C-alpha cells in the first residue's frame, strides 16, 4: 500500500488499469484504461447506458469496481476505508440533479463538509464558502434555501459546495443535462473559469462546444468500453471510428 501511495510520478492525478465492473451478471465496464495528469481536463461522452456515470462514480467509490486498479492522487482505491475517506476528501463531485441538501440554506450546504470533515472553524468555513459563492457568481443567495433557486443557480451552488472542500480533482456527471437551455451557459461559464484556474477535471457531458473549448482529451465510451480517446480537434473532425462518427452526427445534427 505504501509503495503505491508514493506513485512514481506525482504529476499523475488518476490512473485506471484494467478496471472491470459488473452489476450482477451485467458487464458494465470492460477493461478500462485511463491516465489523467494533474491539470488535465477530460470530457467523457457516449450513448446512454454506455457506462460513463459508472466509470466516474468508481473514481470516488460511489460504485465499487470488481477488478483492476484505480489510483487517485497517489492513493490506491481498495477496501481500506482510510484510503476511501482520503480520496473522497480530495475529489469533488457534481451531479446531474444537483443533490443539494434541501433542509439547509445555501451557506450551510457549503460549510457543512469543511466543518465536519476538514474540522474548519465556522467563521473560516463561512468566509471560504462566500468566496466560492462569489466565484460561481451567486454570493447574494447565501441565506436562501435550495428550493428557492433556479436549476442553474442550484447547480452553481453545488459546484461551490464541492469547491469548498478544496479538492484537487473534480468529477462532473452531466452537470447541465437537467437544466433548461437558457441556464446551461451560466453553469458552463463557471466550469470554464474553473478549468482556467488549472483544476483537474473529468466531465461527462454532451456539450460539445464546451469540449472543444476546454478539453485536453475527449473520451468516447460505448457498451462499457473506451472506444476512442483523442484531442478534441481530431475527435470531432477526423475520427476513424464508425460508432463515434454515428454518435457525433446524432448529437450534432438536430
Amino acid at each position, binding site marked *: 500500500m505504501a509503495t503505491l501511495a508514493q506513485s512514481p510520478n506525482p504529476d499523475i492525478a488518476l490512473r485506471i488499469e484494467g478496471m472491470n465492473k459488473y452489476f450482477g451478471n451485467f458487464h458494465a465496464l470492460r477493461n478500462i484504461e485511463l491516465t489523467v495528469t494533474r491539470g488535465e481536463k477530460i470530457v467523457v461522452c457516449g450513448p446512454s447506458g454506455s457506462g460513463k456515470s459508472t466509470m466516474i462514480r468508481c473514481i470516488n467509490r460511489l460504485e465499487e469496481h470488481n477488478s483492476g486498479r484505480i489510483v487517485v492522487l497517489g492513493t490506491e482505491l481498495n*477496501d*481500506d*476505508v*482510510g484510503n*476511501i475517506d482520503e480520496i473522497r476528501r480530495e475529489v469533488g463531485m457534481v451531479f446531474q440533479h444537483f443533490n443539494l441538501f434541501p433542509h439547509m440554506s445555501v451557506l450551510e450546504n457549503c460549510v457543512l463538509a469543511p466543518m465536519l470533515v476538514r474540522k474548519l472553524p465556522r467563521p473560516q468555513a463561512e468566509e471560504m464558502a462566500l468566496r466560492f459563492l462569489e466565484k460561481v457568481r451567486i454570493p447574494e443567495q447565501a441565506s436562501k434555501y435550495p428550493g428557492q433557486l433556479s436549476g442553474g443557480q442550484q447547480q452553481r451552488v453545488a459546484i461551490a459546495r464541492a469547491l469548498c472542500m478544496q479538492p484537487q480533482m473534480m468529477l462532473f456527471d452531466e452537470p447541465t443535462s437537467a437544466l433548461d437551455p437558457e441556464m446551461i451557459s451560466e453553469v458552463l461559464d463557471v466550469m470554464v473559469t474553473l478549468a482556467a484556474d488549472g483544476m483537474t477535471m473529468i466531465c461527462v457531458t454532451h456539450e460539445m462546444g464546451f469540449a472543444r473549448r476546454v478539453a485536453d482529451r475527449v473520451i468516447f465510451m460505448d457498451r462499457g468500453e473506451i472506444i476512442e480517446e483523442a484531442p478534441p480537434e481530431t475527435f470531432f473532425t477526423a475520427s476513424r471510428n464508425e460508432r463515434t462518427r454515428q454518435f457525433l452526427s446524432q448529437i450534432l445534427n438536430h
Partner: protein
Amino acid sequence: MGSLLRNQKARNALLQAVFVGALGSLVIAGALIARQNMAAQGITSGFDFLFKPTGWEVTFSLLPAKPTDPYWWYFLIGIINTLFLGAFGLVTATLVGTVVGLARTSSNDLARLLGRSYVDVFRNIPLILQVFFWNALITNLPPPREAHEAWGFALTSRGLYVPILNVHGLAFAGATLALLAAIVLPIWLGRTTRLDSRPEQRRPAQLGTAVLALAGAVLILFLGRLPDTSLMSVPALRGLNLQGGLRVPPEFTALVVAIAVYGGSYIAEIVRGGFKAVGKGQVEAANSLGLTPWQVFSCVRLPLALRAMLPILANQYVWLMKATTLGIAVGFADFFMIVALTINHSGQTLEAIGILMAGFLIINLSLAALFNRINKAIALKGSQLRG
C-alpha cells in the same frame, strides 16, 4: 489487526458477526436461564404437557370442554374463540364503519355532522375503556326477572338471550355453510371464464346452484333437529332465570359492541378515504353520461373506492384481530387468555409463549394472504387507469 479493521470487507463481516452473535447469545442465554428456573420448579421443558389434562375450566367454548381435556384441545378452543370473536367484531365493525363512513362522505350537512361526531368521540377513547364500559353496562342491567324483552330477545345482567333453532350444533354449522354456498357459488358462476363460451347457461346455472344449496341447508337443519322439541327455542322466564334460547355471555357482547364501535370509527375513516381517492373526473364523466345518482354510486364510485380501501382495510382487520386479546380484561377465554392461564397453571412459560406467537403469526399471515388474493382479483387491469 489495525489494518484489518481498516479493511471495509473485514469490518463489515466483523460487524455482522458481532451483531448476530450478540443477539443469538442473548436468546440462548435467556432460554438456558428459563430452563434452569423451570427445572428448579420441577417443570420439564418440552411440548409433552400438550397431552396432559388441564384440570381447569374454560369459561366460554364453542366446542365441548371439560377439565380432563388436554392442553392442545384448550389451545384449539382458544383459537376458535378468538376467530369467532374476531369474525363477529370484523363484520359488525365493517357494518358500522360503512354506515358512518357513508354519512361522512354524504352531501348532507346533518349526516356529515353526525358521522364526524361519531368518529371524533369513539376514535379518541381507548378501546379497553370502551370494553370496560360496555361490560359494566351489561352486568349492571336488571336481572333476568326484570329483563328488557323484545321479539324473543332479552337483555339482562347475565347477558344477551337470543332465540335459536333447536338443532344439533353440527347441523347448524353445516346449514350455515350451505347458506354461504348459496351466496358465493352464484357469484362465482357469474364471474368464471369457464362459462364464457355458453353465456345463455349462466343464469340457469346460478339459479340452480342457489336453489340446491338452499334446499341442502333446509335438509341439514331438518335432519339435525333435536328430537321432541319445538323448532325454535325462545328464551322465557322460568322462576328466577330465563330458560331456552341461547345466552350470549356479557363479556362476549361487551367485546363485540366495543370492537364494533371503536373499529367502526376507524373503518369509517378508511371508507371516507376510499371515496375521497376516487377521481373527480370519473364521477363527472359518469354524470355527464346521464347515469342516475344511484348508478353513479354503485357502478363508478363504489367499485373504485373499494379498490382504494382494501389494502388499508386489511391492516385494520389484522389490528382488530389482535384487539380480541382484550378478552382477558373482562374474562373472555380467547387464545391469549388460554395461554396466560396455561402459564399460570402449568408453568410451561416458554412453550406457551411460543405457541402464542405461532398462533398469531398464522392468523395474521392467513388474513394477509386472503386480502392479497382479493386485492389481486379486483385490481384494475393494466396500469393506465391507476393514478
